[in-house]
């Protein structure tokens, strides 16, 4: 009972936030809406017993990414932009395309309702908290991707600094 309610509330938060993100005029408002959407997602993570990811979502996404977005918005001085129309001139076509895709999604779901073959639920793992088990996996089997990811982050740091700095004349 509780998780159903929680699920629906978090889902609503997420979707509402998303819709607001794509429709508000002022970019700062969009950023705020994004925050709420991300918070909803964090909640959904928690519901799925992914505690570590819940924490990471809040700290990284909300605390990092959206702050970054806000900085950039400030940097690019959007007074004039706010007066411009939000959507592109030919907005019909993407709407139609997305609508079509969405319809097809629904159609697939209803059509295959009976034959939807989800994989069988797995067995619960041994004892140990989410973080311990996650770290165990991360640093044993997935060590190489981990190292590669750190390399990627290094490249991203250097890249973004290079991209954004003023050219020294």
């Amino acid at each position, binding site marked *: 009972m509780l*998780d*159903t309610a929680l*699920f629906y509330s978090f*889902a609503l938060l*997420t*979707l509402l936030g*998303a819709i607001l*993100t*794509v429709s508000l005029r002022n*970019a700062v408002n*969009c*950023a705020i809406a*994004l925050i709420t*959407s*991300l918070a909803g*997602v964090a909640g*959904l*993570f928690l519901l*799925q*017993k*992914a505690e*570590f*990811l819940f924490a990471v979502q809040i700290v*990284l*996404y909300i605390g*990092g*990414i959206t702050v970054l*977005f806000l900085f*950039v918005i400030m940097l*690019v001085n959007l007074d004039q*932009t706010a007066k411009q*129309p*939000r*959507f*592109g001139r030919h907005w019909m076509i*993407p709407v139609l*395309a*997305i609508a079509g*895709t*969405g319809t097809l999604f629904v159609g697939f779901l209803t059509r295959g309702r009976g034959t*939807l073959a*989800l994989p069988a*639920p*797995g*067995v619960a*793992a041994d004892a140990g908290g*989410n973080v311990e088990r*996650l770290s165990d*996996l*991360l640093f044993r089997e997935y060590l190489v991707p981990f190292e590669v990811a750190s390399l*990627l*982050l290094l*490249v*991203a740091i250097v*890249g*973004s600094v*290079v*991209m*954004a700095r*003023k050219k020294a004349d």
Partner: protein
Amino acid sequence: MLHPITVTHYLVLSAALLLIGTLGVLLRRNAVVIMMSIELILNAVNINLIAFSEHLKTLNGQIFAIFVITVAVAEAAVGLGILIALFRNKETVLIDEIDILKW
């Protein structure tokens, strides 16, 4: 409405979020908002991964999600850097004003 919450619910939610995000990418003119919509798409993917991770009682999905977040962070940083550089050159963040590479 009062069915127990299964994986399917999460899949539908993820799909919806994806479509909203795509709408944002395709419709908005402001480049920063487009970047935000991309974040929405990535989150939709994460929801999907976590849902299955729980359903299959394995942690692989969560590991994958960690990496998705890592990549999303890197991409956001670099993308915003590019955006700033673009703004410096073109004085605008409206991307339909940036169409030099055309026929």
